[in-house]
């Protein structure tokens, strides 16, 4: 609703003075013709701001930036890109942690932030149709008064977009019981690099044919641009209990997690934070996290009040049997919200400690959690980098966070070396490279630790079925040799980056 009403009034706001610079580039002229002058930017400022997301990767170079508002406009952009033989990169809120939205070789950046309408909510079918730029938490807020929410809740949910969630198949603390984004997407309207718009999947329980929707979810913008998403909406649980367990060691916390699942309880969330990160978080939220404990476990159960009361007690017992030094239940909704605010701002809070972070995202079998964690700390110590751990313990999804100051010479190399060993250790324990943040550019070099050449070749073919010349987000996910032999669409750095 909001989008249309303002779009007219907002004309000329962003580029009011830009009119003084004549547009020389025919590509930009075509894009402006197709959209409008104020929704296509080619200035140094706009390009500079597109070259990063929330990852540490810094090698981005952006071409013109477009803010389409309709599917037709996205189609037009794709056709212009084809005509000018230029790559495109979809972008949501730029909170990706693997560099997925970083432009390589001056592509056209297609930002989804102005396609932010909640188009329709169907309570009977329990489906909401949304545009890709809708912010995850805005959707949940919209649904709350109706008794529903959108289940995937990445810690970045206050800012990340549904389109970004779909592209990265993002997870969140509450995906333990409810499943990650893929489980909540029923249909997608997408625009392929050819400019063709397609509907993938559908509202039927068992759509006919191959599950192309499933191929698109998690494709990190390499198959095309999502213009509309049909998501399932989840009824709010009648009751919730949140527990905070403190431990002397992270081993005890990890073992408790395994024991809870082994006991047959399916908590809504099981999150572990080590001491360093707990301290940083407590500094920001003041939620009453114990800063002297070696690790804390945040456990949540939801469902019918009687059942979860039993589960909550049982989690407390299991915790104590595994060395919990304190077990506390959030008494009020405010207390619960504050505990979650702490957990969800953990990555952001680390700048209190050092200005840069490199976040890994491996998944290991739950039974191996404690051992892999030991190894992670040992590896970091060997390379003299600080590591913190905050993770979705219930899924075995580790988030070793290497914290450093990139201005110190040699630090970044040490961080990469430590990271590589951490990944190797996770894979050796039977785990995988990425739980939820995607491969992007950051984890690409590690793909061969997981996949054989043959595996990657097949993935490359799937990709080319949607995008024969690799125009969409080139240089991501698949290592170069396996994606497209000929990435003609990648440009060298424009001569005048600050045009």
């Amino acid at each position: 609703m909001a989008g249309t009403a303002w779009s007219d009034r907002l004309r000329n706001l962003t580029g009011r003075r830009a009119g003084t610079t004549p547009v020389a580039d025919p590509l930009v002229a075509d894009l402006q013709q197709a959209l409008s002058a104020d929704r296509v930017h080619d200035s140094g400022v706009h390009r500079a701001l597109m070259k990063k997301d929330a990852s540490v990767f810094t090698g981005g170079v952006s071409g013109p930036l477009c803010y389409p508002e309709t599917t037709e406009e996205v189609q037009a952009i794709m056709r212009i890109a084809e005509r000018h033989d230029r790559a495109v990169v979809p972008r949501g809120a730029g909170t990706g942690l693997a560099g997925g939205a970083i432009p390589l070789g001056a592509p056209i950046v297609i930002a989804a932030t102005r396609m932010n309408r909640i188009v329709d909510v169907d309570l009977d079918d329990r489906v909401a149709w949304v545009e890709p730029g809708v912010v995850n938490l805005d959707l949940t807020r919209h649904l709350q008064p109706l008794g529903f929410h959108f289940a995937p809740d990445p810690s970045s949910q206050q800012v990340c977009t549904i389109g970004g969630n779909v592209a990265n198949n993002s997870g969140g603390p509450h995906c333990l019981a409810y499943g990650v984004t893929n489980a909540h997407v029923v249909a997608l309207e997408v625009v392929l690099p050819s400019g063709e718009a397609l509907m993938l999947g559908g509202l039927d329980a068992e759509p006919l044919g191959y599950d192309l929707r499933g191929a698109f979810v998690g494709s990190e913008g390499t198959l095309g641009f999502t213009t509309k998403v049909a998501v399932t909406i989840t009824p709010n649980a009648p009751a919730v209990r949140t527990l905070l367990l403190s431990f002397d060691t992270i081993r005890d916390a990890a073992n408790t997690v395994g024991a809870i699942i082994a006991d047959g309880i399916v908590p809504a969330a099981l999150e572990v934070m080590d001491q360093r990160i707990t301290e940083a978080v407590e500094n920001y939220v003041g939620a009453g996290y114990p800063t002297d404990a070696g690790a804390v476990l945040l456990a949540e159960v939801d469902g019918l009040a009687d059942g979860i009361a039993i589960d909550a007690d049982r989690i407390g017992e299991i915790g104590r049997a595994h060395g919990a030094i304190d077990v506390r239940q959030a008494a009020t909704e405010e207390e619960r919200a504050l505990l979650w605010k702490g957990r969800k701002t953990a990555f952001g809070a680390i700048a209190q400690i050092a200005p840069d972070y490199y976040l890994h995202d491996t998944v290991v079998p739950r039974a191996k959690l404690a051992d892999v964690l030991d190894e992670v700390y040992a590896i970091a110590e060997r390379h003299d980098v600080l590591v913190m751990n905050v993770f979705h313990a219930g899924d075995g999804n580790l988030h070793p966070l290497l914290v450093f100051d990139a201005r110190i010479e040699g630090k970044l190399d040490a961080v990469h070396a430590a990271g590589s060993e951490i990944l190797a250790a996770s894979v050796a324990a039977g785990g995988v490279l990425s739980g939820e943040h995607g491969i992007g550019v950051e984890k690409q070099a590690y793909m061969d630790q997981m996949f054989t050449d043959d595996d990657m070749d097949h993935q490359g073919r799937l990709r080319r079925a949607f995008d024969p010349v690799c125009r969409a987000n080139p240089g991501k996910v698949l290592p170069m040799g396996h994606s497209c032999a000929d990435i003609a669409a990648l440009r060298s750095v424009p001569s005048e980056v600050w045009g």
Partner: protein
Amino acid sequence: MDLHLDAEDLNSCVQCGLCLPACPTFRVTGDESMSPRGRIQLMREVQDGDAPLTDEVLRSFETCVQCRACEPACPSSVPYGHLMERTRETLADGGHITPGWQRVAFKPLAHPQLLQIGSAALSVAQRAGLVPKRLGLSAEIPFRQEPLTASGTDVYLFTGCVMDAWQREVHAAGQRVLEAAGFGVTPTAELAPCCGALQAHAGLADDTRGLAATMMANLAPDRPILVDSAGCGAAMKDYGHLLGTAEAEAFSARVFDIQEWLADHLDKLPQARPLDLRVAVQDPCHLRHVQRVHGATRAVLAPFVRELVELDDDGMCCGAGGAYSVLEPELAGAIRDRKLGAIDRATPDLVASANPGCSMHLGAADVETAHPMELVDRALRQV
């Protein structure tokens, strides 16, 4: 170009983006260059990367409302407000922003007589229909007002510049409420002509430092200074940082928002029959995001009205932003539209706002507003 920003402050942003949804200009444009993360990145590009000061760079800085909602949203405690004030100061010093006409326009603020004459003229012009609506002046500007008189020396009531000229009845209400709670009040009047907040936002920090020095010299030490305009209170609480002296620190520690002060002395306020109103609280940014004492507004107001309701926009800016609504009318209007939506959903009889700029900006869109002190005063006097 050196913006004179502290390298550590600038580096404390990890580009996580968690502040984006709190930013009004990003919310209405979806444009990274209008977001806190984008603006910080541009400060880096200019200071560390020697990027040229193009029109777009200046535009990005000038469109910031300086509401500072990005600060509480930031888990890494990036001192955005200070970064932006310092950036503007450097740019204004270099003549890149805040053109001469703006500097001239700020001058009368520090001179009460000039302001009174100007206001009288504006009042006449307004009545004659000569004031463009985009200036956002809703309520009629009074032509002449009754002066406030001191009733004791327990506390100062800061009266300031524009507000004293245009909304003196708010000060009068605040004074009566304080007196009802047993405090003898000295209105600061010409002892403290202006807090310098608008000047600091425009990058004219030296003007602000001068005004701060005057105020500190004129006001008796050790007496609490109560402020009923959120923007002024925030500026005065920042004198310690701005001047960097122990004396200024001590002065700032004596500054309280009037609601903050009363919330600490609730037991002293007489009881009264609550007004039969459903009141929505609109938190001025500098009360909520900078002073962070917006809880006090609720504590003080609750006993005196039938019902208090919250807006569902997490305290997002209304777009007033001091002089912002005049300098950036379109953006300010788009931001206000969001606020109007939130107000509509809350279905209040009236909106309580503790900042004159917000009241005027909302008033220009036909929202009925009152200062919390006016409501308490009304309940106490039952008029």
